[in-house]
């Protein structure tokens, strides 16, 4: 089980409390598809992803980004059992979606950058550290049921 200090929990909760899941989720997914274009391989049915503008404006990207970040919220609510929280999602990503777990790490890093751009100087090194740890734990949990 992952150990979270009181400070880490507080830093995570305080950021999460101010996050617009819809906005940040859409932005994080869009940036993933733009910065690492090979990730578009999972979204062939999303329509127009031909340019950064197209990706950002794509309603399916926005909706899916919101869905992904909403799910991320489950980790924030269940810091002491992230493994259990993502057990089924891990199986899904392996067996049905066939997503290389490296993509979870890429998305996690992008999410941290999106948070940094929204929170500016409030996103202190300690804050970043807690969030890098969280995205790493989530990525690990999502990869855990792979076979």
């Amino acid at each position, binding site marked *: 089980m992952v150990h979270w200090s009181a400070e880490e929990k507080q830093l995570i909760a305080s950021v999460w409390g101010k996050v617009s899941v819809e906005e940040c989720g859409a932005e994080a997914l869009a940036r993933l598809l733009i910065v690492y274009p090979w990730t578009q391989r999972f979204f062939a049915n999303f329509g127009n992803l031909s340019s950064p503008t197209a990706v*950002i404006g794509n309603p399916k990207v926005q909706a899916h980004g919101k869905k992904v970040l909403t799910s991320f919220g489950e980790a924030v609510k269940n810091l002491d059992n992230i493994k259990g929280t993502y057990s089924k999602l891990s199986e899904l990503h392996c067996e049905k979606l066939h997503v290389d777990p490296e993509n979870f790490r890429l998305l996690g890093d992008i999410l941290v950058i999106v948070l940094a751009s929204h*929170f500016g100087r409030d996103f202190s090194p300690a804050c970043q550290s807690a969030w890098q740890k969280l995205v790493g734990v989530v990525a690990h949990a999502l990869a855990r049921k792979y076979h």
Partner: protein
Amino acid sequence: MVLSANDKSNVKAVFGKIGGQADAFGAETLERMFAAYPQTKTYFPHFDLGKGSAQVKAHGKKVAAALVEAANNIDDIAGALSKLSDLHAQKLRVDPVNFKLLGQCFLVVVACHNPALLTPEVHASLDKFLCAVGTVLTAKYR
């Protein structure tokens, strides 16, 4: 992975905008890297890594200068950083994974201080540039 003309101009614009803040950005990048990725501290057992460390500030300045130099010679990063590449291969031997960690922290610093600058397109270009720098610095490892 190749830097397009757009990538190059995006990167030059970023460093142009950052200007004199580059030294501070370098120091903050290191500070964040040591906080978020404690294993990176293993390369600096001889440093005081506490808050406000003069050594970290000085080293951040060096790192920033190298990035600025690469950006200013973006058509030939390998040439511009050749000596640094030798140094990393022969003396420093920093494991290649760490360049990605440094790059992540640099992007976070830019995002914190200049969010408007880091549009998705610029983010992509800057990420590619940082990868390219890492690749050059590890190119002579074996």
